[in-house]
């Protein structure tokens, strides 16, 4: 073996330094050598001078009985095959591990064997602790998973159950609005509009709940067709200008490069724009600026939605795409009137398109939400 020559002359120091108990015996099972560790460890029956003694007199008889070590040594002498080790439990909760190797002097003839013995009590205890923790962890995970499933099931059921009453209410509102239930006074008309906008808000919440449960069960369906992202952005921006106008904000769109068509779900991408722009408007103060920039990158189309609003704290940035996350304690990101689902849904939709979505933001300096849609999505 290469490098072994560097051991020459230091054998003794090295063997004495090995942290195992090492005992060498001859065919008559008389001890020829015991290292420093033999005397230091609990396996020792004697403090000094064990050379020439029978093995059975220098290690505890309990250990000899438990291991059957005498027979095993005889067998190694007989066969020349090393005994590769066994673990024994010793009274008092100690654990030992031992091995027996033949020392060949000439071909065929074995006159000595070396016994390595190791106290592995600590190791065994750690192993047991680890196993226990693992079981605990597994149980906790199973419990968590069950709770999560119950929660998902609840969301799904709740959103379904809410749909019927909402449909009934919405139907009557529409009948009022369509004049199917007689002419309304101006005041009645005005109040019906309020009810109508609130029920629409409720419908959006229920849709968001349903989308979330679809995302969780991976049942969110992407219906692909050729789409133009800039056209979608224009449509959404037109819808949003009224909302932004209420806060005297300016919303602009710029398209860089000549955009190619890509395969995607137009309705779902529109939903992403909707969710991101609704947030941008909400978290940007009066007279703020919101810019949408679409760029044609080599592999994907990149959409940036930039606002000069209140920004998002670093600690919130990694979590805002989680469902039901509405910002930590004092955070300004708290989504009022929503359930913290908008960004989770946006992320789900973008990832179903094999794109990416992330945020760059600094408190007080605004936020930039960026998402990409691959051109070769199929």
């Amino acid at each position, binding site marked *: 073996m290469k490098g072994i020559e560097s051991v020459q002359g230091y054998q003794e120091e090295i063997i004495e330094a090995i942290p195992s108990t090492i005992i060498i015996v001859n065919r008559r099972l008389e001890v020829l050598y015991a290292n420093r560790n033999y005397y230091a460890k609990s396996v020792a029956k004697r403090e000094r001078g064990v050379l020439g003694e029978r093995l059975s007199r220098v290690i505890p008889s309990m250990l000899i009985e438990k291991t059957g070590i005498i027979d095993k040594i005889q067998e190694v002498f007989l066969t020349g095959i090393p005994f590769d080790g066994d673990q024994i439990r010793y009274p008092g909760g100690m654990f030992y591990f031992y091995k027996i190797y033949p020392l060949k002097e000439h071909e065929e003839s074995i006159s000595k064997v070396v016994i390595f013995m190791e106290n592995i009590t600590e190791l065994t205890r750690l192993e047991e602790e680890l196993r226990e923790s693992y079981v605990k962890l597994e149980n906790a995970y199973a419990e968590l998973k069950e709770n999560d499933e119950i929660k998902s099931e609840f969301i799904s059921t709740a*959103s379904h159950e809410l749909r019927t009453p909402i*449909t009934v209410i*919405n*139907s009557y509102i529409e009948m009022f609005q369509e004049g199917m239930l007689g002419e309304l006074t101006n005041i009645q008309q005005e109040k019906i509009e309020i009810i109508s906008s609130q029920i629409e808000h409720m419908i959006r919440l229920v849709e968001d709940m349903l989308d979330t449960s*679809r995302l969780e069960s991976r049942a*969110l369906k992407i219906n692909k067709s050729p789409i133009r992202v800039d056209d979608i952005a224009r449509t959404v921006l037109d819808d949003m200008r009224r909302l932004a106008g209420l806060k005297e904000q300016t919303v602009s769109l710029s398209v860089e490069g000549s955009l190619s068509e890509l395969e995607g779900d137009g309705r779902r991408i529109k939903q992403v724009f909707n969710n991101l722009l609704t947030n941008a408007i909400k978290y940007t103060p009066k007279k703020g600026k919101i810019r949408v920039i679409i760029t044609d990158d080599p592999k994907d189309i990149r959409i940036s939605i930039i606002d000069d609003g209140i920004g998002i704290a670093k600690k919130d940035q990694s979590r805002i795409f989680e469902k039901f996350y509405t910002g930590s304690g004092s955070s300004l990101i708290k989504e009022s009137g929503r359930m913290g689902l908008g960004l989770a849904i946006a992320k789900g939709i973008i990832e179903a398109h094999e794109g990416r979505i992330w945020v760059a933001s600094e408190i007080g300096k605004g936020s930039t939400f960026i998402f990409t849609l691959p051109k070769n999505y199929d």
Partner: protein
Amino acid sequence: MRILIIDDAPEMLRAFRDILEAHGCEVHAAENGEEGLARYAETKPDVVLMDILMPKLDGISATKKILDIDPFAKIIVISAVGKSGLDNECLLAGAKKFIIKPFKIKDLLSSIDSLVAQ
């Protein structure tokens, strides 16, 4: 125009009735698939509005059974269940259209009118 509504929610039945009667339809109602089947044979409606989750006989099975009696039956499934693939399942069962709750009255009426005109 004669419409049969099969839905287990009484309030929903009432809303459907109000919408459709205002539209000039003759409305018949049933509260589950089994009752719907019997009502279909009695009333021979132009269009059936069918819910999915109902006691006794669900909407998809009821759709199939009505089509066994009358292969020309025009059935619109209207459901609150938004499970993806459910629309296809209903169309495969022989429904002419799948509408999800909540719907716009305009969309509901135009779906009925265009089916009747076929």
